[in-house]
Each structure stands twice: as structure tokens, then as C-alpha cells.
């Protein structure tokens, strides 16, 4: 389990992480989402033990990550902008990693050759295309046999087929070895397909952190049509995040379970009422709407 406790990081007075708390359960695929500059990459660099925190702590199974070689040996990462030595090939880097990661799996390296068929393992990684570089990064990371895999925009640059294959490999590791995957991405539709836990970051803090199903159960999109065109006054204690209207159809994003909200709105005798689940993207947008990060109508 990864525990991030009151993590603080400042850059020249700017607090990139402001007392951030998050917990990634063992064996989870945890999606870390947030607007640009929310602090996603920063927190990942702390979790991989690269940066030293100004305050707080990052623990893996109760042990501090920073400067802890034993813990870091269990973590593999693919940063958004990864780096390999000048003119080093995938094979060279595999040899390098083998010298660092005691669990580096040479047999798996050989087996994955059949997966990443387009990657020439003897070719300098820097000479490969962006997508192939990404494949090489996955190839190497998966061979480290990590307990925790930290991925920052992992499938960016991969074609749809390769995305599927990579996610398949990751899911397989999660299923078979209980690997914990922490993934940061802006591709919420894709995260929605693979993640079982989601944390939403903004201004260096985690706003919401739940399992995806909990998150989806806690917000509901109601489409309602009343006798009158105007929306009747709703109860004060009903937390409505967003209201929109197209013709006579009102669309309301309301915090609460679908059953509870449906029951409460039923007293207004709507002509038509339907509770719809929210996508992760919608949850992201409406949760952040309350954090002064709403989608604005832009007229140019």
C-alpha cells in the first residue's frame, strides 16, 4: 500500500503540493487525475523517491520511500518524459536495469520480445519513434517485476492496438502478482476502463479519493421534464453541482445516490425523470467545477 501523508513541496515559494494525502491500496489500479499544474507529476516523483519532500512522508507498506533502496527496488516507473543513455539500446538498458533490480526477469524480457515486435532491441532507443520508445519503456519496466508500477501519461503515443496490449499486460500483472499500478493521465475515458480507484487532485491536494464505483454512486445526472418549463425551487440541502436546460429537459448533476435523489425529486411530480450514471470525465469536470475550475462558455 502506498501512503502519502501531508506531503508538501514548494518551488521558489510556490506550493506545488500542499499537504497532500492519498492512499493507494495493494493490487489497485489507481488513476490520478487533475487539471494541468495540479501536482500529479510532482507527487509521482515523490512516490518513486526521486524528489525530497519539504514536509510529510511517502510510505510503501509502512516504509519510507526516499533513500530506501529496498523499497525502490519494488517500484518501477515510466515518467512522462523518460530518459535513456545516449545511444543505449533497449538491450543495453535491460543489462543496466538487471544490475540494479534484483528481481529483473531476463526470461520475461525474452518473452516480451514477442509482444513488442516493432521495437528493435539493438537499436538506440533515441532513434526509435515516440511510440516505440514508449513500448521500450514498458518492456523494461515490466521486466523489473515491480510490486508497484508508477506511470505518468503511460499510453500517450501508443497506437490503439498497442494500448490494448499494454493494458492487458498490466492487468495481467495486477491479477497474477497483485501489482499495484498508479497511473496519472488526462485520458479519463481510458482510465475509466482500467482503474478501480481514482484520486482527483487540484492545487496540490487530493479533492476526492474513492473507488471508481463509489465515486460514480455519489454523483448522479438527472434528466427531468416538469409540467412547467421553469425548474421548480429545489430543497436547500440538495447539493446541485450543475444545472442545464435544453428545451424543457433539465439536466441536473446532484451529489447523492441515484435512488435517494430520484425519491426526493419525485415529490415535484415530473413528467419524465431519469437517473444516469456519470462518466469519469463528467465527475472530473463537475467535482472541479466547485473548485473554481468549471468549464466556461467561451465566446470569441
Amino acid at each position, binding site marked *: 500500500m502506498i501512503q502519502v501523508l501531508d506531503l508538501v513541496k514548494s*518551488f521558489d515559494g510556490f506550493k506545488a503540493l500542499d499537504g497532500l494525502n492519498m492512499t493507494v491500496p495493494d493490487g489497485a489500479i489507481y488513476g490520478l487525475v487533475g487539471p494541468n499544474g495540479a501536482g500529479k507529476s510532482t507527487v509521482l*516523483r515523490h512516490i*518513486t*523517491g*526521486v*524528489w*525530497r519532500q519539504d514536509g510529510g512522508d511517502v510510505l510503501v507498506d509502512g516504509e519510507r520511500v526516499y*533513500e530506501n*533502496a*529496498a*523499497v*525502490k*527496488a519494488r*517500484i518501477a*516507473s515510466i*515518467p512522462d*518524459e*523518460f*530518459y*535513456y*543513455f*545516449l545511444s543505449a539500446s533497449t538491450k543495453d538498458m535491460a*543489462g*543496466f536495469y*538487471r*544490475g*540494479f*533490480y*534484483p*528481481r*529483473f*526477469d*531476463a*526470461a*520475461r524480457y525474452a*518473452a*516480451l520480445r*514477442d*509482444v513488442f515486435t516493432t521495437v528493435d532491441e539493438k537499436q538506440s532507443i533515441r532513434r526509435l519513434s515516440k511510440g516505440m520508445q514508449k513500448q521500450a519503456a514498458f518492456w523494461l519496466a*515490466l521486466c523489473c*517485476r515491480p510490486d508497484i508500477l508508477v506511470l505518468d501519461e503511460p499510453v500517450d503515443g501508443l497506437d490503439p492496438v498497442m494500448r490494448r*496490449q499494454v493494458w*492487458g*499486460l498490466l492487468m*495481467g*500483472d495486477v*491479477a*497474477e*502478482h497483485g501489482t499495484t499500478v498508479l497511473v496519472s493521465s488526462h485520458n479519463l475515458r481510458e482510465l475509466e476502463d482500467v482503474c478501480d480507484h481514482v484520486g482527483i487532485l487540484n492545487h496540490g491536494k487530493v479533492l476526492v479519493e474513492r473507488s471508481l464505483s463509489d465515486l460514480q454512486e455519489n454523483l448522479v445526472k438527472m434528466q427531468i421534464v416538469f409540467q412547467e418549463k421553469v425548474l421548480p425551487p429545489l430543497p436547500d440541502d440538495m447539493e446541485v453541482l450543475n444545472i442545464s436546460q435544453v428545451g424543457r429537459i433539465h439536466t441536473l448533476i446532484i451529489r447523492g445516490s441515484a435512488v435517494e435523489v430520484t425519491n426526493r425529486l419525485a415529490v415535484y411530480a415530473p413528467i419524465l425523470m431519469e437517473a444516469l450514471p456519470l462518466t469519469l470525465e463528467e465527475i472530473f469536470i463537475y467535482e472541479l467545477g466547485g473548485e473554481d475550475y468549471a468549464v466556461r462558455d467561451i465566446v470569441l
Partner: protein
Amino acid sequence: MSWEVKTMQSGTSCSKAPNPWWNAALLRKNATRFWPIWGAYGAALLLMPLLLLTDGLNRRPPTVSYLSESILVMACPIGLVLAAVFSILAAMAVFSYLYNPRSVGLMHALPIRREGLFLTNYVSGLAFMVVPQVVVFLLTLGVSALLGAVPVGALIQWLLSQVCFVLFFYSFAVFCAMFTGNILALPVFYGVLNFLAGGLYLLLNQLLQQFVYGYYGSYIMERAAYWLTPALVFYRAGEVAVTGGGGYRLYGLHIILLYALVGLVLAGAALAVYRRRSLETAGDVVSVRWVRPVFKYGVAFCVAVTLGQFLYFLFGGVLPGGIWPMLCLILLSGLIGYFASEMLLRKSFRVFAKSWKGGLALCLVLVGACCVMDFDLLGFNRAPSADRVAAVQVSGLNTWPSDDASNASFYLTDPEDIQAVLDLHSTIARERRELQEGLISGLNNYEYGEYNQERLYLYYEMADGTSLSRRYELPLYLADLSDPESITAQIAALAGRWDLVEGQYFNKIPGDAELVEVSIDRVFDTATATYNSVIADTEADREALLAAVKADLAAGRIGKRFLFEDAERRSTCYTANLRLIFYRSSTVLDEDGKPYDRSWDGRVEISLQTTATETLRCLTELGLIDDAHILVTHDQDVSEYETRAETNAAGEAEEWVIRAADEALPAEAAPRTP
């Protein structure tokens, strides 16, 4: 195909903890990635055995002594320069990952502690140079064995010195590497810091001499600058000395070893900085927060001093006198340095609005410092109290005539003498402003011979064991000689101490030295109208002349000093100098206790004056001067040229010769009948 099939458990999953302090894979990777560095260094070192081999084949059979000298001479400066250059290259290579955010991410996500990364990289870089050194050492050993003479001692010294050079320079380069996040800044830091102390000392000395009247240097600063300029120390320490037994050794191997230890300390300090380093500063010119203001104001100060003086050197000729033009140029240069460093730190040209306050503070500090120096608010020029002074050395005065007493240096311990010097010092301190103005305006306002500028060094040995030194440029006026309170008169009194003059000529001659030659240059031959040298032939003649000179010195008839090129000086001093050459030979023991001959010779030059009656009489008696071979004063010497010009026109040379001879010798010394 199912991907899960590919992810079957491998046999390598057995857990083994990684070594957090060392990683051999990284060492191998460094060696294979950066082979051009150690390859080039090794190739450069290989020149040594190759040169020995070709040289040895040309001159058979080479001796151990010859090979030793050849090897040690190569140790420095060639080895020194190679070590300095390749050390920074090695440090740049093995720590290059610190200068790119992506490589920082790769290396620091690896399961190894920072200490492990540092140690492995540090050892890698060191091995780039030490391994080639050892290989070349063994190869040279083999080559010299092939040549039939094995200079083991010299080779070991060579290896030791090279390892130590590298240990220091490489550690220093690594130390610098920890303070920057920019790979281009690293060699700049390394180069600048290697010579910063020496350069800053020279510049500060120059600046202080401009602003602080009386300042000419600080021994402590000079020594500190020397020891903090390791390249200079190594260069001196790497000179080859000859041992008593005819062997060769490095002059300062112990100093080189000491600096190698300093290198290890620097490596330790570098590790301490690395442990605390904020890795997100990759790309920044300065990566350690507390060093940023040091860098900013340090650059501003250095640019102020360097560029300020350079601009003054360029434009000083068209600027008005005084300190203010210089101060303005220093302020301008300081601001340039300040904002330039701010731009480097912020990686932006838009720094003026955010950092003008710092620039203003810098200006205020510079103006304040200049005012303190110029107005002598710290009492720098104040003369010490007499009870604190144990002795004083007065030197620097350059007086006429030009001989061994021209640059007199008096060491005074008598309280009265010390008080006289202190009085002079107090007068100088009191009249500081007038003296400084006099230096600027004097040359334009006075005729030659009425005005002179002299330099006076005062070196006090204090009763508490410390020392105090001052240097003054003084304007002297002929008219002031009559006023005993004037600085000119006090200086003249000091320079004209008869009791001290003899020492100026003869103190350097050991008592047991033998007078082997006495000669006079510029004796005028009236027949040919040319100047010739004459020599006292016998030992008796030489001794007689020496006795006459000493008698004149004791009576104050010779060695009179003149501060001005005035009429008295020109009519009193002959153009001829008496030259006495002394020789001494002795047998001393060398380091091994073996006796060997050591010879010494020294020369005394005394300008002859018309008042030196005993000497002139002796010269006449010995026949070295006579009616046809005369001494001429400077007055007459000047007349010579004028007269020659005339005689060339009128053919009256003979008349001049008679006139010159009449004036040349005092009546009692060489009476002459026209």
C-alpha cells in the same frame, strides 16, 4: 494471443536486496559510455614511455639519473595540465545526469541511495585517470628496464604526483558539480574557482592601491591567494630539485600529498551537498539555495572590480582625477554583474523590476566601502604608537646617484630613529589629501629638478610580534628642503643618514670575502674624447682603494644621497662608478654529508663624488686617473653633448677638453696646470 500467457512468473523473482552504497553495473556503464575520456588521457600519458624509448634508443646507454630527470620534468607542468583538464571532463561525464530533469528522474528512481550513486560515479571518474596512470607507470617501468636503467624512485614520485594532482582536481571538479544544475556552468565554475583567489587578490590589491592611500599589499592576503590557487601551488611544488647525491626529486611532493588530502575532504563535502541537493534544480545555474545570493553578489563584486578597473584603464585618461570617476565605473560594472547574474539565476531577461532593490543595495555598499577607504574612516594611515613598535624598515626611496645605495633600505631599532620615522608617518597621514593632489598636479606645475615623486615603504615590526606595512607615493619639492618640518626635508634626512650608508654598500659582502677586482667605468680620455674603464692591477692597489673608500664613507665624503636632480647633485656626482668585486670559495656539506665546493661572488658599485677626497687621491696616486684621464661630473657630461655639437660645427674640441678637465677634479685631489 493472450498477453497474460506472456506474464508468467519467472524464476528470477526470488528477492535479493540491492546494495544501496555501490553498483557495479553503473561503474561498467560509465566505463563503456565515457571511454573517449580515459582513452584520450591514457593516450596522452603514453607519450612518456614512448618519448623515453625513442630518446633512449638515440643516446645509448641512458643513465638512471638522466631518465629520472626526464620523467620528473614531465610530471609538471604537462601532467598537471592534463590532470586539470581531464578531471573536469571526467566529472562532467559521470555527473552529467544531474543536469537534465529526465536523467535525474532515471538515476534517482533506481534502487540505490544517493551515497551509492555518488560513490560509484566518483570512483568511476577517478578510475578514468588513475588506471591509465598505473598502466603507463608499468609500461614506463618496462621501457626503462629495456633501456637498461630503471629509475624506480622517479617513477614512483611521478605516479604519486599524478595521482595526487588528479585526486585534488577531480574532487574539486566534483565539488563544483554539486553546486550547479547546468553542465555548461560546471567548467566555468571550475575554471574560475581554481584561479579566483589569485585573480581576486591581484584585482583587490590594484583596487585598494587606487582607493587606500598607503596600501600596497597584504602578506597574509598574498599567501592566502597563493595557497588557494592550487594550480600555482602544484606548479611550484612540482619543480624538480637536485639531491646531494646527484639524483632528482620533486621539490614539494609533501605539499602535493597534502593537497590530495584536501581533495578527499572536498569529495566528502561534495557528498554532503549532494545528499541535500534539490534535484528539481536540474538546469539551474546554481542548484543550492544558499549559494544563490553568494553567487549573485559574488559575480557582481568580481565584475565591479574587474570590469571597473578595465574601463578605468581604457578611459581613465579622459576622465577627471579623484576617486569618483573610478567609483562610477565600479558601480556601473557592479550593476552589470548583478543583473547578469540575476538573469542567469532566473533564466530570464526580465529581472529589473523584481531585483532592482538588490542592485540598489549593492551600489550603496560599494559607495560606502569606497568612502570608508577614501576618507580613511578606519584610520588605516594612522601611525602606530611608538611603544608598540620594535623596529622599522624603511625602503623604496630611489635616490641619486645611481649605485648600490640608490634603493636604500634601513632597518632601524633605535627608539629615536623609530620616532623619526613615526613623525614622518604622522605627517604623511595628516597631509594625505595634499600629498595625493600633489601627485596629480606636481608634474605639470614644476620644472624638472624642482619636483620629484618618491615611493616610501614602511615595514613595522610590532612589539607583539605582528607587522604593519605601508607604501606611500610622495610628491617632494626642492623648495621644501629648507623647512625641516616638511616631508621632503624629513625624507632627505632619512635618506642621507651617513651612518647607515656604508651598510647599504657593504652589508651584503661576507667578512671573509676577498676583493678580487676594482675598476672604474667612464674615465674620460681627454686625448680621444672617449670614456674607458680602468682597473686596479694589484691586490695592494685594490686594498688601498677599499681603505680610501671606507675612510670617505666614514667621514661622509662619499655616498651622499640626493632627492632631486638639481644643480648640487649634477655638480657633485661624477658619472663614473667605482666597482668592487668580491669572491669567496668554501667547502660545505650536502644533504648526504658529502663535502663540495661552493663559490660566491658579489659586487659593490659606488658612485664617485667630488667630495670623496681620499678616494680621488688614491686613484690619482695609483695612476688610474691623471690629467689625461679624468672624471667628469654630470654637469660636465651634459656639457659634453652640447659642446660636441658646437665643436662639430666649429672644430673647438680641444678647448672643451681642457675646460672639462679643469672642472673635473678638485684642486686638492688633482691639481692641474692648464
